[in-house]
């Protein structure tokens, strides 16, 4: 397609230019789709005062893999925007919680569907939207609502990203992506919301045209950098989650 190659030789190079103060989205829901290798590279790169966007700051599951919480612990983060600042099980404690409670890091807690829609809106040029989610709760206090056809809705604003870090199963050199099963989750919407989308790819990157156009999940127009994940131990791969109690 006459594009310069989007392929990068290393995770280190692919995140080298990320400046302090960037807003970065991280794909992933539980293990699938989490860009472990890019998170690790960003920890080594050291950018600071970052705003992180993702489902959860992580750290409740064992074994622990690179997650947003590790960037927090590494002193790189000013704010997180996510659907969980605490674990679903009250007995679990997220490593992030103490940074939040001490005021060291700011957090914006957003219902998961609202979070996804705010990024879809950013990618689709919609500045804000109304949703029934969170009406009547503490999250809606003092915010703009509107009654439409007899039902109350809450105004939510689009959420733009400077960078999206995502993981896919297959990519071609143009950046067309396919995901495997639940790996997809937030990855496609984050790609549309970001100025620069960086993808870690499970399989060797294919020549353009190798993925049938009808089978592409995310168009390469939303993808800027591709890196194939090497085999272990150089690359990080999802591991079996340890089941706990009952």
């Amino acid at each position, binding site marked *: 397609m006459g594009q310069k190659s989007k392929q990068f030789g290393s995770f280190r190079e692919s995140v080298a230019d990320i400046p302090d103060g960037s807003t970065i989205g991280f794909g992933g829901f539980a293990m699938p789709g989490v860009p472990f290798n890019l998170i690790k590279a960003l920890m080594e790169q050291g950018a600071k005062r970052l705003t992180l966007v993702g489902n959860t700051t992580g750290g409740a599951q064992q074994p622990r893999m690179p997650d947003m919480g590790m960037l927090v612990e590494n002193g790189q983060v000013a704010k997180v925007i996510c*659907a969980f600042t*605490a674990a*679903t099980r009250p007995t679990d404690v997220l490593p992030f919680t103490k940074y939040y409670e001490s005021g060291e890091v700011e957090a914006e807690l957003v219902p*998961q569907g609202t979070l996804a829609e705010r990024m879809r809106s950013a990618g689709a040029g919609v500045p804000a939207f109304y949703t029934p989610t969170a009406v*009547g709760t503490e999250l809606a206090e003092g915010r703009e609502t509107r009654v439409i056809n007899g039902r109350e809705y809450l105004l939510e604003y689009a959420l733009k990203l400077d960078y999206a870090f995502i993981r896919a*199963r297959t990519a071609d050199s143009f950046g067309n992506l396919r995901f495997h099963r639940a790996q997809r989750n937030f990855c*496609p*919407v984050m790609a549309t919301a970001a100025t620069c989308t960086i993808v870690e790819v499970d399989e060797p990157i294919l020549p353009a045209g190798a993925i049938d156009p009808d089978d592409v999940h995310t168009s390469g127009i939303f993808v800027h950098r591709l890196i194939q994940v090497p085999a272990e131990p150089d690359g990080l791969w*999802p591991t079996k989650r340890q089941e706990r109690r009952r």
Partner: protein
Amino acid sequence: MSETKGLTRQQMADRMALEFQDGWIVNLGVGIPTMCSNTDTGDRDFTYHSENGVIGYGGVASPEEEDLLLVNAGGQNVTLKPGASVVHHADSFAIIRGGHIDVTVMGAYQVSMTGDFANWKLKGQKGGGIGGAMDLAACAKRVFIILEHVTRAGGPRLVTACDLPVTARGVVKLVSTNYGLFEPTGDGFLLREIAPGLTVDEIRATTGGKLTVADGLKTVQLSR
């Protein structure tokens, strides 16, 4: 494992799964609700939706079936049924927000007699864990809750009013606990079925508001 009376966690899920009607699209939340997908549902055919965009999943995967990239809302590895599909997160919540989910089953800390429920934030906690609960609670056609009947300290979870921050107001239609099956009635709870080994007096003493007992009260039905 704390000492509990009445039904096991799987039985609480099994009882709830009996309510699902043929053809329903069913969303199961993290914790006990995901156990509904292990229930034998006989000849009824419905579709499980998980908030991460997996539509048409089956039971928890055995080690041979396991795909580490295929998880339910609780992050457990699950199987797919024939006809399954996957969508991204914004579309998954468009399904939810668009009113296409027939029922969502969630866990909770408290349910009130007016159908409010609380499941995202504990008392005095800064922040919390909302996940997809507020979207589901506001937009699914029905909200069913599964929870243990009393707190670890023995206090009620079916209460006159939630004293924890609510997830949504006035939406809960049915509650399955280890003590029985309940419906919020506005001024209390209707006990529809009672768990073996429990008495109505015991339930009344551990339930907020006025307890109404169904005519010809039966023990909890666990299969059709």
